């Protein structure tokens, strides 16, 4: 574990550093994939839409974190604006980013680009998630439950599930699967929905192994509910596709 990277006088949190790298890489990849799949016009739309999606993701991630740490955030509402890269929550980022990106396309009357751009995002996100989960691994976040499995990592006085590593592998598998689907699927939106199904499954299953999840009442992990909702959304979409082309 390497939570702090010392660069001369700077102490950089490795989690935060890799998150920033992940955002840059993911952003660049998003535009490149858009170009590969839709030519220059889609790339132009991608680069116009991206800042809004990123801003929406940042706002969503912080709001989500704040709402589920409400007692703490209510006491110091300034925390909602504080520059802390640790106080972010992935489900909020995904929802916020998708909503903001879609709202922008709607307002600029570029609805027809929504599905191709969502597909491009689905191909770009797993890479960003891989980098970000390496950051979690280095900073010791996404702490896992104790286990006796041979690949357990020793962290904080116990052998634990390397949940960050599982998330890395899930992102890698998602990436591979989507690259494969991308060669078959013609219907715009298919990749985005496949992404939702795969990452939703990962969240539903892997979040159960964490001990630092954001929880709602009764100890239910919020990320699992979102994961399930993502799977159901993808299945529902697939079902509507079936009805329209009997």
């Amino acid at each position, binding site marked *: 574990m390497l939570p702090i990277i010392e660069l001369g006088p700077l102490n950089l949190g490795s989690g935060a550093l890799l998150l920033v790298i992940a955002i840059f890489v993911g952003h660049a990849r998003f535009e490149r994939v858009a170009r590969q799949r839709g030519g220059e016009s889609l790339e132009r739309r991608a680069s116009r839409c991206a800042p809004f999606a990123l801003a929406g993701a940042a706002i969503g991630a912080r709001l989500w974190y704040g709402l589920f740490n409400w007692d*703490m955030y209510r*006491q110091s509402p300034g925390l909602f604006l504080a520059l802390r890269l*640790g106080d972010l929550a992935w489900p909020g980022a995904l929802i916020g980013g998708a909503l903001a990106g879609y709202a922008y396309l709607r307002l600029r009357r570029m609805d027809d680009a929504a599905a191709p751009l969502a597909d491009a995002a689905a191909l770009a996100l797993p890479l960003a998630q891989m980098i970000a989960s390496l950051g979690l691994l280095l900073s010791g976040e996404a*702490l896992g439950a104790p286990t006796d499995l041979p690949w357990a990592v020793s962290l904080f006085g116990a052998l634990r599930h390397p949940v960050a590593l599982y998330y890395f592998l899930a992102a890698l598998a998602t990436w591979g699967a989507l690259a494969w689907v991308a060669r078959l699927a013609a219907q715009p939106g298919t990749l985005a929905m496949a992404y939702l199904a795969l990452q939703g499954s990962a969240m539903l299953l892997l979040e159960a192994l964490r001990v630092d999840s954001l929880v709602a009442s009764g100890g239910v*992990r919020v990320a*699992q509910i979102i994961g399930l909702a993502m799977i159901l959304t993808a299945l529902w979409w697939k079902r509507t596709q079936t009805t329209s082309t009997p």
Partner: protein
Amino acid sequence: MTFSRQFWDLLLVATLLFGGVFIWTTRATSDAVATTPAPAPAAIQPAPLVGHPAPEFTLTATDGSQVALSDLRGKVVLINFWATWCPPCRAEMPAIQQAYDRFRDQGFLVLAINQQEDVASVVRFMSDQRLTFPALLDSNARVSADYQARALPSSFFVDRRGIIRVVYRGPMSRGMIEGAIEQLIAETP
């Protein structure tokens, strides 16, 4: 693919059912925090481990006073290692303050041990964040070394007899903090 609509309906319902049951059975329970209910100390050798007597230290607080851990026998003490540059440390401070406000009259004390920062920035941070518990200065990081506090924040809950009962590395939620304190305060020394 040529699955029928009924197939997707079934799959949707099955996923919803499986997912719901899975979420409920894997929900977080309070024993996620590593507590040991056994009242008997596991060892007599001081060590930064659950069941051991907390390693002794005397440090200077930001107000210049000397604070020795041994003087606090009879109180439940949260020893929290932190630094102002550490985001998760800053994140948990409001929750620690809240627990301090709630339990201080019942014999609970927080010792926020700052790692190797100058007194001015520590004082400024404490007053900016309106934190009222004592901040101690570990200027040569010797106490941090005794407690193996390499990862920040690191928190040690010490019971009234001076035995470490809960060790938590990484930021704590309010629930974790107050759960541990409630349990230790309820015990008779």
